[in-house]
């Protein structure tokens, strides 16, 4: 049985480091990532990770890139989770016609091929990364909705929900104080994993060149590294580092999600 | 019911069994200095209310307690102290010599394996009996427990009701003809009539294979009907042991008396106060705060003492085996 605390602590540390990196980018980065120096400079004492084809310091790019990637990741995940939870809760609590309508809508959204749509829209509209986040959020809520709904259906039948109804509490009160806290442990892991998916999706889109070229995300860095000769020339410090960052961040998110699930199980076991 | 000679050899001797758990809320003293014997061929009921420690005693004997439990004492079976055995040896003993039937049958059965196969597995693994023969024996056992239809053995647990699953569990435990069967609340979840039937069948099979039954239950009436002797537990301690009919008609310990008065047939007379915490139990006699006959002495923990019964149920040469933990005696 792996040591959960080690995992969760590791995940937390990683996660927080990235968070700090994003928040304190101006303080941490040695240079402004838009300032031009000598291009294609290999790693050295002045530029720890060298410079790219435009002469921008790669380390600074990396640090500032965390902002874009994290915002897209969080933004998409937050939106998807909020919409999904709302839909799932209402469908599961009210059942009947409400459930049918909401699940019908969910099914329609599920039929939409998500990544291809994002790619197509990104290709035609060339949106900013905010739009990309919004787009992802508005397509991904379906799986959260499904999971939340099934848990809500379960919780609704539990004694204390019936008791609350009998005592005359309003539906709103019951949903927020009785249902939501007992469904939360299902929502959190899905939220964490959505962040990871969103980030990877953003990186993929950017890598394909469909992202926002005016914002440096990690995916964009890899894209430039690819198109501007970084791969061919073996400038590993250019394309490897953003890839590593994406991997590590996703890893930290997954570890946190795992730790949350374990903690939930431990509390259940105590009971 | 034939009651064995009181001086028959004890099959299982529990000596000074104490179990405690470390929990975030404190140290739970689940069992303290539990001593009793289980004799050959007899049915001993360990009765008490929820949380008195009786299930913990059963799990302790079978070495199935969680990691945060600390166990002291001895459980001597066939000359060996079970509590001192290694896990491998204990695994061999479990199932084949001492079987345990747990409370929630639907949870103890593998939902995706056919019922007959689960029972037959016991024979295949422990005794190396062939598949066809073990399946046949499983079917026989099931029909003896009232699940007569041929197709029953090839069905899955989820197709069964709680009562049927309970009988499957009993079949699984008895198929190896163990010498001791520990049944933990076997009648829970079964309604009155069915519980009676299942227990009667269990008693019949137990007599046939010559096993002893340690029955753990909170159902006093079931204990009275099925068991030869009864041990009453309160807050982790045994407070009274004796022949079931005697304990029922002449309870010696004030708790036993109060408990019996709660029965519907005696008018639902409640016991004042509430069950004590096992983290900070009362000093001395655990029952004294609620006892109508308490004295100053009760602040000190009484020992188990032998008591002569009125002789109504015992022969002239039989020792009555009646013990009470109370200063009144």
């Amino acid at each position, binding site marked *: 049985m792996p040591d959960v605390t080690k995992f969760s602590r590791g995940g937390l540390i990683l996660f927080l480091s990235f968070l700090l990196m994003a928040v304190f980018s101006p303080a941490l980065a040695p240079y402004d990532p838009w300032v031009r120096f000598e291009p294609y400079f290999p790693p050295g004492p002045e530029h720890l990770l060298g410079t790219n084809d435009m002469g921008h310091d790669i380390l600074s790019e990396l640090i500032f890139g965390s902002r874009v990637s994290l915002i897209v990741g969080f933004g998409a995940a937050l939106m998807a989770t909020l919409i999904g939870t709302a839909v799932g809760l209402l469908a599961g609590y009210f059942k009947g016609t409400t459930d049918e309508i909401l699940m019908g809508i969910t099914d329609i959204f599920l039929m939409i091929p998500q990544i291809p749509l994002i790619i197509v829209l990104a290709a035609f509209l060339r949106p900013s990364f905010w739009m990309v986040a919004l787009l992802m959020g508005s397509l991904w809520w379906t799986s959260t909705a499904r999971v939340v709904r099934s848990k809500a259906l379960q919780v609704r039948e539990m*004694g204390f929900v019936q008791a609350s109804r009998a005592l*005359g*509490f309003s539906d709103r009160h019951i949903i927020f*104080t009785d249902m939501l806290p007992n469904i939360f442990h299902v929502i959190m892991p899905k939220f964490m994993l959505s962040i990871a998916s969103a980030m990877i999706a953003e990186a993929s889109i950017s890598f394909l060149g469909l992202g926002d070229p005016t914002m440096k995300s990690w995916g964009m860095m890899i894209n430039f590294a690819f198109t501007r000769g970084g791969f061919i020339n073996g400038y590993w410090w250019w394309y490897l580092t953003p890839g590593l960052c994406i991997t590590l961040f996703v890893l930290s998110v997954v570890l946190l999600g795992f730790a949350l699930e374990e903690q939930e199980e431990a509390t259940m076991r105590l009971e | 019911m034939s009651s064995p000679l009181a001086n028959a050899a004890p099959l299982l001797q529990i000596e000074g069994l104490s179990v405690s758990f470390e929990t975030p809320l404190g140290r739970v003293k689940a069992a303290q200095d539990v001593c009793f014997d289980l004799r050959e061929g007899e049915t001993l009921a360990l009765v008490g209310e929820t949380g008195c420690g009786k299930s913990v005693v059963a799990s302790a004997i079978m070495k199935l307690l969680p990691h945060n439990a600390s166990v002291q004492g001895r459980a001597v079976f066939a000359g060996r102290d079970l509590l001192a055995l290694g896990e491998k040896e204990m695994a061999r003993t479990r199932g084949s010599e001492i079987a345990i039937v747990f409370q929630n049958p639907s949870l103890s059965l593998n939902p995706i394996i056919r019922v007959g196969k689960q029972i037959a597995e016991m024979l295949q693994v422990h005794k190396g009996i062939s598949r066809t023969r073990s399946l046949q024996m499983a079917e026989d056992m099931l029909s003896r427990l009232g699940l007569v239809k041929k197709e029953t053995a090839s069905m899955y647990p989820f197709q069964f009701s709680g009562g049927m699953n309970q009988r499957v569990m009993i079949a699984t435990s008895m198929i190896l003809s163990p010498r001791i069967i520990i049944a933990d609340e076997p009648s829970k979840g079964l309604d009155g009539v069915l519980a009676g039937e299942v227990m009667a069948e269990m008693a019949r099979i137990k007599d046939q294979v010559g096993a002893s039954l340690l029955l753990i239950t909170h159902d006093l009436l079931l204990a009275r009907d099925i068991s030869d002797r009864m041990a009453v537990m309160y807050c982790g301690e045994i407070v009274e042991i004796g022949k079931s009919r005697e304990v029922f008609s002449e309870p010696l310990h004030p708790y036993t008396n109060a408990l019996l008065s709660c029965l519907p047939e005696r008018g639902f007379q409640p*016991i004042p106060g509430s069950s004590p915490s096992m983290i900070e139990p009362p000093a001395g006699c655990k029952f004294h705060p609620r006892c109508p006959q308490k004295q100053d002495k009760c602040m000190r923990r009484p020992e188990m003492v032998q008591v002569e019964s009125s002789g109504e149920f015992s022969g002239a040469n039989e020792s009555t085996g009646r013990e009470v933990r109370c200063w009144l005696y």
Partner: protein
Amino acid sequence: MLAVLKAEEVGKAYESGLIFKKRHIALRGITLEMVEGKTLGLMGVSGSGKTTLGMMLAGLEKPSSGRVLFAGEDIWRLRGREFLAFRRQVQMVFQDPEGSLNPRKSIERSIHEVLGLLKIPQREWLKRTGEILEMVGLPEELLCRYPAQISGGQCQRVALGRVLLLHPRVIILDEPTSALDISVQAQILNLLKDLQQELGLAYLLISHQPEVIRFMSHETIVLERGGIS
């Protein structure tokens, strides 16, 4: 003696199937009357529809046929505040004591939220909580605990306390003690009896145990296969 809650030819049917609708009739033609200060015992084997009937009388499920009358009014014709008033006056205590409390709310919070529902000012909460704990026989130390940390009997008392805060006239008791030990059962049943005398409550006592029914009821109805026998 005034009939406070009545059922008139109440029935419940379940339909299944999309094209070939199958109708399963759980209850039919139930007529009964509940009187202030008296207990009506409802007996029947499991599956005979006792709980469903209880829930219909409490207004938690709608009957497929017949009417449920509270103080002479069909409860399903009541709107808004009137229906809420009915809800308050007819309460229900459920079978699984631990299940009727939200596992994530402390006992104190579970009690306080009812006080909040009744729009009782917060400064009175301490006093009211103390009163209700005393009425159901619970020590104050339980307040900071969670349902999983207290016994089944104590959970049932908390559930009962919450119900009593609403000053109901009728309480539907669905197998209130069948999940409890016999000594706790004796305590709860005696508590219910005392409260009935003190507060003039009408009870519908649902149980499969004849002795429990006999101990508490003034009148008994037996349900068999959906109808009164």
